[in-house]
């Protein structure tokens, strides 16, 4: 266990190994580690960004959906309103038409009645004249008394 030249040899060898490590080992490992660190950090950031984008898209989709639903509701409401209106209108038209038909029918009936009345009146006048002829047996001049007979027929 003497102090020998081993001491100096070891010093030199030590320096060589340190130099080797400094030159050929350490920088490469640190470089790779730094790069990986950066890659991972970037990846995490990208993932976070994607998450944010996803949330944003979800929100946008929700908004679109809400809008569409609202629009659909409006359309349905509008259609319902229109339908009601149409029904109402049709009902009014139908009522009007009915009224008109009723009136026409009434007018026709009245006309018929009047015609029948006229006919009856004429027949009654004739019958009355016939009767009076039979009773008075020709003593009455048809021409002279026609005014009288017309008045009679008009009173019927």
């Amino acid at each position, binding site marked *: 266990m003497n102090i020998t030249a081993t001491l100096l040899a*070891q010093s030199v060898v030590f320096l060589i190994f*340190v130099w080797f490590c400094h030159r050929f080992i350490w920088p490469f490992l640190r470089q790779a580690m730094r790069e*990986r660190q950066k890659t991972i950090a970037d990846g995490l950031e990208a993932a976070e960004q994607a998450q944010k984008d996803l949330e944003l898209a979800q929100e946008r989709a929700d908004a679109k959906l809400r809008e569409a639903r609202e629009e659909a509701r409006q359309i349905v409401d509008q259609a319902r309103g229109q339908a009601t209106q149409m029904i109402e209108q049709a009902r009014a038209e139908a009522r009007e038409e009915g009224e008109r038909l009723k009136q026409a029918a009434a007018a026709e009936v009245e006309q018929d009645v009047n015609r029948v009345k006229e006919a009856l009146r004429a027949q009654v006048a004739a019958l009355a004249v016939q009767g009076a002829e039979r009773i008075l047996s020709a003593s009455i001049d048809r021409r002279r008394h026609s005014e009288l007979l017309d008045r009679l027929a008009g009173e019927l």
Partner: protein
Amino acid sequence: MAESSGEYIQHHLTNLTYGRHPDGTWGFAANAQEAGDMGFVAINVDSMGWAVALGLLFCIVFRIAASRATAGVPGRLQNAVEMLVDFIDDTVSSIFNHRNELIAPLALTIFVWVFLMNLMDLVPVDWIPQLAHALGVPFMKVVPTTDPNVTMGMALTVFALILFYSVRQKGPVGFLKELAFHPFPKILAPINFILEGVTLLAKPLSLGLRLFGNLYAGEMIFILIALMYSGWMIGVFGGVLQWAWAVFHVLIITLQAFIFAVLTVVYLAQAYEVEEEH
């Protein structure tokens, strides 16, 4: 086991030394006595061999991971290596607040390399020496960090870096001023200088000796436990002991590697800091 306990321990604590014999010839030392006679002009071949091999292991494995490193999904090796790198990077950036691209790789190298060298302590103490013996190699210390040459060598490099960065950050005059005008007023500059000089020298000394002491003690206990394998009953007891000590040692080797790395960073951070004058 033919040898006595003393010889066994002695054998385990002797490095395989190559150097210049006192008579001028070069060769391996046949025993501890011859190794001692060689003086400074010698190399502990086993310590250096294992240290370099483990350092190369670190360099190769981490280089493979580094060259294959992608920003994509990491594989198992890359994951493990990156965990270490991240751990060291966090530790360094919490201690060292200045801009220096060398500090973190330095800490990583220290931590992994010292850990690997310490890890050799968990290999049962006889395996590799016995194998080496069978191959004709007389001595084989497999844990480089139990060799003070290795730990102090690293501490010396750290010390050189401390001096280098101190002078670079503060200038030679600024550095000397810091040593002389601190902690007492300027009149007591010599005393300051001695105090600060000791503080400065204590840094590499404690750094190297702490690692060496911990690992040497640990290794010694493993060797002592290994001595128990001579008898049946006591051998079983020794096995249990060895297992328990190894489990505890896992903590020690990791902790010591970490302490060496962190203290290096702390010392270098201090070298960067400009203290206010008194």
